[in-house]
């Protein structure tokens, strides 16, 4: 549900004269029009760019807010007495970035001083950058067409998390952390609540004028257990999905009710025997599998990687363009979508940072690789006519480029449930939560740990084991999938910190899936 009424609470200072607050203030009731002051500032960039000789220009005027609150509970030095250390931080960032095409080349410049004269100056700088670099362009930039949009959009949330008092937040997380810490073998109990809001305005020389407001939440709890005598340390987390949502997602997470389980499982993890390495079947829960999807199928199907634009940093991709429509990357069960429209997804937004209306599209159909993630300046490179709406910049001061949409795995048949997946395993491991993750620069070879591991013996879940990691190759792994649980078990997890690009940018992205089974994967024993 959209909620414009809570904007005043979000601002927290109704009489402010701050530039950011004036520009992003509360709209007239249910208005779909961007703030006129933002539109006036946007027009300055567009006009100045044209005057300086640019053939295209866009400006993003953005304000971000992030709030972190939490507790760290750990023993005092040489004592069993616990110190309870709270932390509370509220961060804001506000500025604009202008992107132009001049002489066929991109140019970009950004500043935190949001005034008409600075916008004009910075726009001229962006044109200078573009023209200077045009001498070394491989080929002129071509933009796929997009419609012109004038719109104002707010992400769905029921209760504004910035409107909830910090007192209430600290009390909630304190209660959960104290529960975690109750056993003396729990050395550190850590919990936090993070909230993020993005106010973004986009205007382009093609006539689009778009204002969007996005609210996201992320709670977390972690217990670290230590056995000093054996010199072993193990942790267990309650990994709540971060999501584009409001305070209601925190309430749903039931942090307090889950804390005793997390504590008990941290202790069980501490005492758990090491895994016996070898080929084993894996049943992976959504809290874990999201990251495997992200690294192996999400990144390998980014067009900029496949075409070599990320060769110097994030890498290229084994999923090269001739494989489109042909390559069998997974078993027939594997259907994967790129989607910036799904409810709660961290990459969900109505328009991307190219001003393109976002969409849902197939990436893998019945195991066959179908489509790349693209933006406007890439579509023509694979003979496509329009962008798939995957453009994003992590700040007003960052250059927009192709970033991952929510990439999710379709659920299996209704009758399949986690127990039926487990019942088909003679010798295997059930993994919950994400742990260590690493994959090569072409997305073939990966190795994942997890947060907790249970042995599966003779079709039944048995006790916990420790020191587990599994190693595989993307197409081997996805082709070994022979069972996916039904829609009732589909859950979305994700990350705020997916890195790519130079200068490096982060991206927030979600990956949904149901529990799934993979046959004969190489399981390792770690230190």
């Amino acid at each position: 549900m959209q909620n414009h009424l809570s904007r005043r609470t979000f601002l927290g200072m109704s009489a402010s004269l701050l530039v950011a607050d004036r520009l992003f203030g509360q709209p007239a009731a249910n208005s779909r029009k961007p703030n006129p002051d933002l539109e006036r500032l946007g027009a300055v960039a567009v006009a100045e760019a044209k005057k300086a000789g640019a053939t295209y220009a866009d400006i993003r005027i953005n304000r971000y807010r992030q709030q972190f609150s939490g507790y760290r509970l750990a023993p005092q030095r040489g004592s069993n007495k616990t110190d309870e250390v709270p932390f509370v931080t509220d961060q804001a960032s506000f500025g604009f970035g202008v992107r132009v095409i001049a002489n066929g080349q991109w140019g970009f410049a950004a500043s935190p001083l949001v005034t008409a004269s600075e916008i004009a100056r910075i726009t001229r700088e962006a044109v200078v950058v573009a023209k200077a670099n045009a001498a070394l362009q491989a080929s002129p930039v071509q933009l796929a067409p997009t419609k012109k949009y004038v719109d104002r959009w707010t992400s769905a949330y029921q209760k504004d998390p910035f409107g909830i008092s910090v007192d209430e937040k600290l009390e909630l997380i304190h209660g959960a952390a104290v529960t975690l810490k109750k056993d003396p073998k729990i050395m550190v109990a850590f919990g936090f609540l993070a909230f993020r809001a993005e106010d973004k305005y986009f205007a382009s020389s093609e006539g689009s004028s778009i204002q969007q407001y996005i609210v996201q939440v992320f709670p977390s709890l972690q217990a670290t257990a230590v056995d000093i005598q054996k010199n072993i340390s193990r942790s267990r987390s309650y990994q709540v999905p971060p999501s584009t949502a409001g305070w209601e997602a925190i309430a749903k997470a039931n942090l307090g009710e889950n804390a005793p389980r997390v504590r008990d499982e941290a202790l069980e993890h501490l005492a758990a025997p090491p895994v016996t390495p070898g080929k084993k079947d894996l049943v992976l829960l959504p809290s874990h599998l999201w990251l495997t999807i992200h690294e192996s199928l999400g990144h390998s199907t980014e067009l900029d990687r496949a075409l070599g634009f990320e060769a110097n940093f994030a890498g290229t991709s084994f999923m090269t363009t001739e494989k489109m429509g042909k390559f069998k990357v997974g078993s027939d069960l594997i259907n994967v979508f790129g989607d910036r429209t799904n409810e709660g997804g961290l990459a969900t937004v109505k328009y991307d940072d190219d001003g393109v209306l976002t969409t849902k599209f197939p990436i893998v159909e019945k195991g066959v690789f179908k489509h790349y993630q693209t933006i406007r300046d890439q579509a023509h490179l694979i003979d496509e006519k329009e962008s798939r709406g995957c453009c994003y910049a992590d700040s007003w001061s960052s250059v927009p480029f192709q970033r991952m949409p929510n990439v999710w795995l379709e659920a299996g048949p209704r009758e399949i449930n986690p127990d039926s997946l487990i019942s088909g395993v003679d010798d295997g491991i059930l993994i919950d939560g994400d742990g260590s993750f690493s994959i090569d620069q072409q997305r073939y070879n990966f190795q994942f740990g997890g947060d907790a591991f249970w042995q599966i013996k003779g079709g039944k879940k048995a006790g916990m084991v420790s020191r587990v990691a599994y190693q595989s190759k993307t197409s081997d792994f996805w082709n070994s999938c022979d069972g996916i649980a039904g829609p009732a078990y589909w859950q979305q997890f994700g990350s705020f910190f997916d890195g790519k690009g130079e200068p490096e940018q982060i991206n927030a992205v979600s990956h949904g899936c149901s529990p799934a089974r993979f046959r004969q994967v190489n399981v390792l024993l770690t230190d």
Partner: protein
Amino acid sequence: MLTQKDAKNLIDKVIGFSKLPQCEVNVTWTEDAFIRFANNGITTSGYRITQQISISSVTDDKRQGNAVVTELIDDALQHGVQQAEDLAKISKPNPEDMPALGPQKYLTLANFDAYTAAARGDAMIPHVKAIIESAKSGELTAAGFIQRSSNAIAVGNKANLFGYHTYTDCSLTNTMRTAGGASSGWASQTSVSLKDINGEAVGKISAEKAKRGAVTKKKLDPGKYTIILEPAGVSDLVGLLAGNFGARSAEQGQSFLSKQGGGTHLGEKMFPDYITLRSDPLDTKLATAPWGPSLLPNQRLPWIDKGVVKNLYYDRFWASKANKEPTPAPGNIVLDGQGHTLDDLIASVDRGLLVTRLWYIRTLQPQTLQLTGLTRDGVFLVEKGKITDPVTNFRWNESPVRVLQNTRMLSRASRAQGSETGSAIVPAIVADDFNFASISDAV
């Protein structure tokens, strides 16, 4: 540029708005310019100014609130202070809060270069051009990134502490790939001054690596190998190691420095005599800021001295409980080298692997510091002191602790840029028994 006078005025203004007993203000200001290139052409580039004012307020009973703003107008600063103070009043007392530090004597560090601070496209494009021309002439495909930044940082508090520092930095990285993507080479340079950067030299190294790897690669079995690890890879391993010298986690059983049954390995000889790992804020190759997060002055400090664990990182609170002098956190990292060249290292190895750099490094076990990662952009078999064949990439599972314990020879140290941890002053090393876990087909 944010001048010292501007910074002092700004901090005084923020502190002037503060009503609580303690207020600390940290200011960062950066102007940077960058060019990114791929497929033998410039792709994106930019010029930008960013700034941030972090305000931390503390009540008499140790309640702390923090706010960060980026607008410099009085309203925004006043609002930031108000927000930090409101949060402090709502928060709970922090039993580990330490009293504000008074005035400190910070080192004067010379790591600002006016040429670099003013450099724009005309100073950077020639380096990119040299690389792209070299790629084209060698039928290679170049990708890379060149960036320079001009930075001012300042800090002040109600107890009359004030610090101000300016620095510049720049880097150039370049990947060369052969047609069809069968081989990849990489090289980089990073310095305080753009005058030290040479695009032609960087392009030459990465092109040589790419060409050397262009013949059919040997697929060696995973297992334990002697490696000659170039400085970029060493920079990552020691950078990750240096983040694990915390006294508290060592004493509380969560670190490689924790001892079975309790206590730490402080004072023990864990490494060979020739391993010395230290912080040196005055090293002109990679000077650090004059202060760290605790605001204590950064200083020369050995973490491992001739193989002995010499210091742990005691923050002010933990030091007060342990009756020790607090130590600044590692600001920069130096692994001392020996007088050898990389060629000497290669010549010393009967059979081993020369590794250009490491990639996607993550912690497998925080306590043992076992890491996982991959090799990237050039692995070569060394036999009887000579490079023979290119080899496919590997995944490795290994601990930097074991790597330093198994190190038997080091080159001269230079500033090198890792893939995960920024740069450090490190040599190339020869280390035995490095654990490669599986083959990676990636190029």
